[in-house]
């Protein structure tokens, strides 16, 4: 039995179709969730896709935060539901305070679109459990505002707890320092490419797993993350965890 996973569509989302397709390849029954609906239609997990929600006006992700669907997603997350934010979806999660930190303008001031190497910090999370030990991941990034920022104390605790679950790395797996322009595409502090909440149920990442979900695209490493999410969601459904309820 396949598990139902929702992909939120904001005005300005542009990776929603790819994400629906990637989730299907990962074994899910994906459905689109319109931003004006506060009903998650019984999904077992939610993905916020990339794009420019509400034009990225004011700050990337901030206006999306106040949409009806995000009220439902916040309630779902507060109840322990699995939520993954990709690129602009990560920015939405950060603005909503569902994951720690903020995403600043890239240090180079350029929109960067290229493949990066990623090193997972932990393989026990709902978003990483299908990744083989020691495996580095290759997938594309495409963003202008992906420079991860949090204060020093927060960074320390994120690293220690493994909430900083994904780092930009060199080809040999060395984590990319802020000034390592070759491996760290946006100047993210401590090379952080993805963070999750303390409970390990809500995660964001700047790279695009759905754009690396089939070998013909140059890499299918992104499937490992999507499959992790789908198998975690399926396991929760099998264990009798109620999926998202309809809220009014």
């Amino acid at each position: 039995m396949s598990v139902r996973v929702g992909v939120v569509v904001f005005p300005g989302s542009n990776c929603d179709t790819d994400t629906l397709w990637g989730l299907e390849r990962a074994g899910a029954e994906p459905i689109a969730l319109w931003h004006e609906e506060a009903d998650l239609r019984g999904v077992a997990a939610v993905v916020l896709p990339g794009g420019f929600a509400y034009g990225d006006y004011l700050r990337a992700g901030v206006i999306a935060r106040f949409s009806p669907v995000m009220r439902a997603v916040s309630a779902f997350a507060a109840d322990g539901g699995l939520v993954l934010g990709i690129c602009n979806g990560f920015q939405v999660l950060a603005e909503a305070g569902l994951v720690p930190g903020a995403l600043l303008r890239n240090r180079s001031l350029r929109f960067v679109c290229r493949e990066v190497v990623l090193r997972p910090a932990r393989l026990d999370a709902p978003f990483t459990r299908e990744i083989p030990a020691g495996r580095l991941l290759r997938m594309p990034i495409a963003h202008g505002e992906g420079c991860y920022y949090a204060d020093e104390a927060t960074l320390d605790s994120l690293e220690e707890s493994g909430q900083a679950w994904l780092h930009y790395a060199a080809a040999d797996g060395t984590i990319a320092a802020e000034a390592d322009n070759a491996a760290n595409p946006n100047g993210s502090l401590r090379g952080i490419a993805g963070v999750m909440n303390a409970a390990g149920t809500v995660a964001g990442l700047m790279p695009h797993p759905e754009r690396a979900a089939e070998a013909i695209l140059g890499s299918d490493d992104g499937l490992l993350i999507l499959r992790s999410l789908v198998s975690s969601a399926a396991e929760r459904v099998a264990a009798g965890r109620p999926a998202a309820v309809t809220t009014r």
Partner: protein
Amino acid sequence: MSIPGPAAASFRFAVNVTPKEGILDPQGRAVEQSLPHLGVTGVGRVRVGRRVELTVEAPDEAAARTVVERLAAELLSNPLIEQYGIELLGGASSIATGQ
């Protein structure tokens, strides 16, 4: 003869949002790095922010300011990385048009 309703006035505010001290500001740095091309020296610590102007209808200035404070803190700025200042541009009775 009509009886005047509850007094409500319009107040025009500006909210100035800037990156907090110590937060990387690549835009400010880019502006700063362009200054030598203009032949300008002796200018530093450039920080680029955003200014939002808005009109609030409220019984008095204090009530209007409360609304602006909330918008500034919850929507117009991200308290992790930005700070804001509120300026009253024009008050009372009629909507001030910016000069």
